[in-house]
C-alpha cells in the first residue's frame, strides 16, 4: 500500500524569536527553589505546624468486602487527648470521584482494604493512633472479587449494587464506553498479508512519591476553609472541596495552598478521602487538623497505575506498511472510580496515532473489583498501551521478515498528517528520533546473542512514543491564568494557576517571562499553588504545563512588555520600535548618548513616581489553547501539539540467573524546543528510570485484595546502583504553537521503556516476555520453556 492519501496540513507562520537571539530561554538555569532545598529550608507540608493543630488518623477497613454491622467508638473517645471520632454515622455524607460512587466514610459496607471506616483527631499522633486501635468494628464478610475475570463471571457478587444516582447495577462492568473506531477494520484485515495476535499484561505500580500524602485543613470563624495540600490540581481540588463544604453545611469559601510538594507523577490528580476527613475533623473540632500518611498507607491507600491486560492484532502488507490494528483491553479498576477508569481515553492516543496505521479498533472495559482503586500515573494509559503496541510491532516485523528498525522506519509518523483519530501534529520528529537513536546505539552493526565464553547474551531493542505535548482538552477548559506585576524596584511577580511538583515549571515560567520582558531571570519570581492569589488552571497533568502555562505566561508578559515599551519610548522620546529591553537594561536607538542605555528600574520608577505618568505595569491573562474536546466517538484534535520519541536499549541477559542488565540507553525526544535543557535531561533521566522499574522490578503484589509489599524492601524501586548510562538526545522541531516552540515532556520519558527492553531481551535470547515486570524468575522460566521446546 502506498501512502498517496497523506492529508497534509498547511504550513503555519512562525512567530518565535530566532534561537540565536534568545537570552534566557534555552539555557541551563538551575531550578528556582533548588537553593532552598539543598539548604533544608524548603517547607513541605510535613514541616508545617499551625497553632492548636490536631493530628488525624484513619481507621482502614480490615476486610476486602464486607457489610459493616456496627462500629463502636466509645473506647476511642475515652483516650486522653482525643478531640473527635467520626464515622459515617455522625457526619454528613460526602461523595467523591467523578462518578461519585464513593462516600468518604463508609457506611453500610466496605469494598476494599483501603476503605475509610472511621477517623480520629487528637492532640498527638500517639493519642490518635491509640484511639484508632480501640475502635471496634463488626463486619459480615461478603465474597471478594479480585480479578476482572472473576468479576465478569455469571452471577458474580456485585461490588456496587447501584450507581450514585440510585440506579441498580447488573454486573461489575463500569459503564464507560471506551471504543474507538478509525477507518475500516475489515478492509485493513483484507489488505494484510501478515498478521500477529498477542496478549500482554501489566501490573499495578505505585507512584512512590518520596513525600507521602498529607494535608492540613483549617476553618476560620467565618466557616472558610484553608487547606494546605499537596495537590497537582489546585483549581479543580478547590471546586471539589467547595462541593464538600456545601454537603457539610458550611457556607464559607475554600482556599487551597500548596507548600513544596514531595513528588507527584499523577498521584495527586484527584482528591482523596483523607483530605475530606481532615476537613470533617477540623470542622468538628474547630481546630486545624493534619493528616500525614505513613509509607505503608502511601502504598496501600493511594491509587496506583492499574493492572491491565491487552490482546492486540496488527497486520501489514507485503511492503511492511501497517494496514490495521485491533486491540481489546481489560482494566482492573478496583473498588471505586477515579481517573484510573479514564486511562483508556489516553490509551487511544498511541492506539490510533503511534505509527501510521489507517484502520483501527480499540475497545476497553474497566471492571470493579475489591482491589485498590486506580488512578493516573505518569503517562496515564500510554505506557501500558505502548507496551502492547510496540512489543507486537517487533513480533509482527519478525513474522514479516523485516528488521524491527526498518519496520518502524516504514511506519513512522510524519509531520502535518492528520492521524486516524483526528490529531493534527504540525511538528513531528518521529523519524529524526529514530535515526538519531539507531545511529547512537550502533544498531546496524550490533552483535546479538551469547557473548562468547560467558553465560550472558546481548541484545538491542527500540520502541517509540507519541504523547500530548500541547495541552489535552479533557475538561471544557484546558486553559491557564497568569497575572504579572512589576514593582518599580524592578522585581517581577508572576502568579500562575499552574503547579510545580518538582519538575521545574517554576523555572520554565521564570525563563519565559524573563525572556519576553528582557529582565534577568533572578528578578522574576513565580508564585503557584494558592487559589486565593493565582487564577484558574486545569492542573499539572498531561505534560501540559510548559505548553499551556508557558503560553499563558508568555502572552501575559507580552502585554506587560508592550505597556513598558510604550511608556519608556515616551520617557526617552523615541519611537516604540527604537526600544529594546535586555537583561534589565533599556536600549534606545537615539543620538542622545544619555538615553541610549538606561537601567530598567530607573524608567520603572519614573513611570510610577512622576506626575506625568503615575503608572505601574501589570496585566492578567487567561490563555485557552485552541484544542478541542474529543467528540462522542473520541475523534478530534484534543492537543495543540504532539511530542514524539524513540528509545533504544542495549542490555545483557544472564542466561543462568535470568538477571537483565541494561548497559546502554539512548532516548531521543522531539520536544519542539528545549526551554531548559538541564531540566529536560532531568525529566528524561527520571522518567526512564521509572520506566526501567516498571519494566524490570516494580509490582504491587496482592493477596485477596491485601497489598503484600507496602514498603521499599519488598516493592523494588531502582536505586543509585541501578543507574544506567543514558544518552538523552533532544530533537527540536520548533512547534509553531508552543511557547518559543516548546512542547510538553513531563511524561514521555517513561512511556516506551518497557517495550524497548522487552524487544531487546528478545533480540538477546529469543524469548518474548509479555508480562511486566520482567523479573529474573520470569526470564528464567521463559528460557527454560524455550530450551524445553527445543529439546522436545
Amino acid at each position: 500500500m502506498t501512502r498517496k492519501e497523506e492529508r497534509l496540513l498547511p504550513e503555519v507562520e512562525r512567530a518565535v524569536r530566532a534561537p540565536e537571539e534568545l537570552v534566557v530561554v534555552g539555557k541551563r538555569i538551575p531550578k528556582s527553589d533548588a537553593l532552598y532545598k539543598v539548604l533544608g529550608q524548603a517547607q513541605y507540608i510535613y514541616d508545617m505546624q499551625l497553632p492548636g493543630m490536631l493530628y488525624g488518623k484513619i481507621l482502614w477497613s480490615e476486610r476486602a468486602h464486607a457489610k459493616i454491622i456496627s462500629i463502636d467508638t466509645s473506647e476511642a473517645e475515652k483516650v486522653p487527648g482525643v478531640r473527635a471520632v467520626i464515622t459515617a454515622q455522625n457526619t454528613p455524607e460526602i461523595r467523591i470521584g467523578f462518578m461519585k460512587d464513593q462516600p468518604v466514610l463508609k457506611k453500610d459496607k466496605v469494598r476494599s482494604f483501603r476503605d475509610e471506616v472511621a477517623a480520629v483527631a487528637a492532640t498527638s499522633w500517639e493519642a490518635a493512633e491509640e484511639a484508632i486501635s480501640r475502635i471496634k468494628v463488626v463486619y459480615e464478610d461478603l465474597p471478594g472479587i479480585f480479578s476482572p475475570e472473576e468479576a465478569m463471571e455469571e452471577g458474580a457478587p456485585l461490588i456496587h449494587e447501584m450507581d450514585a444516582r440510585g440506579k441498580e447495577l447488573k454486573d461489575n462492568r463500569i459503564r464507560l464506553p471506551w471504543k474507538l473506531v478509525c477507518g475500516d477494520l475489515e478492509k485493513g484485515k483484507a489488505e494484510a498479508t501478515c498478521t500477529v495476535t498477542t496478549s500482554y499484561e501489566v501490573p499495578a505500580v505505585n507512584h512512590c512519591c518520596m513525600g507521602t500524602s498529607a494535608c492540613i485543613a483549617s476553618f476560620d470563624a467565618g466557616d472558610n476553609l484553608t487547606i494546605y495540600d499537596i495537590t497537582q490540581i489546585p483549581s479543580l481540588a478547590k471546586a471539589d472541596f467547595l462541593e464538600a463544604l456545601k454537603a457539610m453545611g458550611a457556607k464559607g469559601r475554600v482556599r487551597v495552598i500548596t507548600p513544596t510538594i514531595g513528588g507527584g507523577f499523577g498521584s495527586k490528580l484527584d482528591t482523596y478521602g483523607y483530605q475530606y476527613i481532615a476537613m470533617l475533623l477540623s470542622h468538628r473540632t474547630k481546630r486545624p487538623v493534619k493528616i500525614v500518611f505513613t509509607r505503608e498507607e502511601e502504598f496501600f491507600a493511594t491509587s496506583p497505575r492499574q493492572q491491565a491486560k491487552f490482546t492486540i492484532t496488527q497486520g501489514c502488507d507485503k511492503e511492511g506498511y501497517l494496514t490495521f490494528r485491533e486491540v481489546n483491553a481489560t482494566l482492573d479498576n478496583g473498588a471505586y472510580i477515579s481517573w484510573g477508569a479514564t486511562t483508556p481515553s489516553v490509551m487511544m492516543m498511541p492506539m490510533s496515532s503511534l505509527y501510521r496505521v489507517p484502520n483501527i479498533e480499540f475497545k476497553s472495559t474497566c471492571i470493579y473489583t475489591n482491589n485498590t482503586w486506580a488512578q493516573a500515573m505518569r503517562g496515564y494509559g500510554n505506557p501500558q498501551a505502548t507496551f502492547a503496541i510496540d512489543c507486537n510491532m517487533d513480533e509482527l516485523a519478525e513474522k514479516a521478515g523485516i528488521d524491527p528498525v526498518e519496520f518502524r522506519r516504514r511506519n513512522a509518523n510524519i509531520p502535518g498528517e492528520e492521524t486516524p483519530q483526528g490529531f493534527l501534529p504540525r511538528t513531528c520528529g518521529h523519524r529524526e528520533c529514530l535515526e538519531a537513536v539507531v545511529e547512537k546505539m550502533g544498531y546496524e552493526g550490533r552483535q546479538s546473542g551469547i557473548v562468547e565464553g560467558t553465560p550472558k547474551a546481548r541484545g538491542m531493542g527500540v520502541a517509540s512514543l507519541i504523547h500530548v505535548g500541547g495541552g489535552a482538552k479533557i475538561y471544557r477548559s484546558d486553559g491557564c491564568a497568569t497575572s504579572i506585576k512589576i514593582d518599580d524596584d524592578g522585581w517581577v511577580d508572576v502568579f500562575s494557576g499552574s503547579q510545580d511538583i518538582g519538575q521545574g515549571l517554576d523555572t520554565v515560567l521564570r525563563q519565559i517571562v524573563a525572556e519576553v520582558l528582557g529582565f534577568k531571570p533572578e528578578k522574576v519570581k513565580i508564585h503557584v499553588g494558592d487559589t486565593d492569589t493565582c487564577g484558574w488552571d486545569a492542573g499539572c497533568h498531561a505534560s501540559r504545563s510548559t505548553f499551556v502555562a508557558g503560553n499563558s505566561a508568555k502572552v501575559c508578559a507580552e502585554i506587560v512588555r508592550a505597556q513598558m515599551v510604550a511608556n519608556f519610548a515616551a520617557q526617552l522620546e523615541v519611537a516604540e520600535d527604537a526600544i529594546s529591553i535586555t537583561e534589565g537594561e533599556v536600549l534606545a536607538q537615539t543620538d542622545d548618548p544619555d538615553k541610549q542605555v538606561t537601567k530598567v528600574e530607573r524608567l520603572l520608577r519614573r513611570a510610577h513616581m512622576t506626575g506625568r505618568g503615575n503608572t505601574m505595569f501589570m496585566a492578567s491573562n487567561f490563555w485557552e489553547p485552541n484544542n478541542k474536546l474529543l467528540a462522542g466517538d473520541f475523534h478530534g484534535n484534543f492537543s495543540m501539539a504532539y511530542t514524539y520519541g524513540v528509545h533504544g536499549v542495549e542490555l545483557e541477559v544472564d542466561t543462568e540467573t535470568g538477571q537483565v542488565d541494561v548497559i546502554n540507553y539512548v532516548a531521543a525526544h522531539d520536544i519542539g524546543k528545549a526551554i531548559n535543557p538541564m531540566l529536560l535531561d532531568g525529566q528524561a533521566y527520571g522518567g526512564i528510570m521509572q520506566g526501567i522499574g516498571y519494566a524490570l522490578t516494580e509490582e504491587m503484589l496482592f493477596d485477596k485484595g491485601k497489598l503484600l509489599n507496602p514498603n521499599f524492601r519488598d516493592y523494588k524501586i531502582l536505586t543509585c546502583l541501578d543507574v544506567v548510562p543514558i544518552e538523552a538526545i533532544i530533537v527540536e522541531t520548533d512547534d509553531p504553537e508552543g511557547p518559543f516552540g516548546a512542547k510538553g515532556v513531563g511524561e514521555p520519558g517513561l512511556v516506551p521503556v518497557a517495550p524497548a527492553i522487552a524487544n531487546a531481551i528478545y533480540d538477546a535470547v529469543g524469548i518474548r516476555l509479555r508480562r511486566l515486570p520482567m523479573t529474573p524468575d520470569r526470564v528464567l522460566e521463559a528460557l527454560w520453556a524455550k530450551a524445553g521446546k527445543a529439546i522436545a
Partner: protein
Amino acid sequence: MKTITFTVNGNPVTLDVSEDANLLSVLNDDLELAGAKEGCGAGECGACTVIVDGVAVTSCLYPACEADGRVVETVEGLVLESGSLHPLQRTFVDYGAVQCGFCTPGMVMSAKALLDKYPNPNEQEVKVALAGNICRCTGYTQIVEAVLAAAEEMKK
C-alpha cells in the same frame, strides 16, 4: 525520659528525650531542624540521613539516646563558615540534581559522609555510598554527576 548531651552542627545541646525516641523526631520536633525528612520511618529510603560521628545514619532508626556524647551533622549545618554553600550544595543546584527535593537533604548528607572520608571517589564508589538514598524524581544521573563535581571542587 533521659537527659542527653550532644553536638549538633557545632552547637552543644542538652535535652530530655524519651527512651524510645528516634533521632529524626528529636531533630525535627525538639530542635526544629526540619531538613532531615521522613520518607518511610523504617530505614529504607534514606531521606532522614544525617551524619553521626562521621558516619551517615538513617536517623529514623537511630535511637536518640545513642546520640549522647556524639557529634551530629545535619543539612542545616553544611553551609561553610564563610557563609557560602558547601560545594555539594552548589553542585546539586548547578547540575540539576534537585527536583522535588524531598530526598535532597539525605542525599547530600550521604555524599558528605563519603567525601569527608574519601575525597577522591570514583563513580561506582559514589553510587555505593548513595545506594541507601532513594530518589523517585531524578533517576540519579545528575546526582552522581553533582557529587563527582563537588569532589573535584573540594580538591582545589
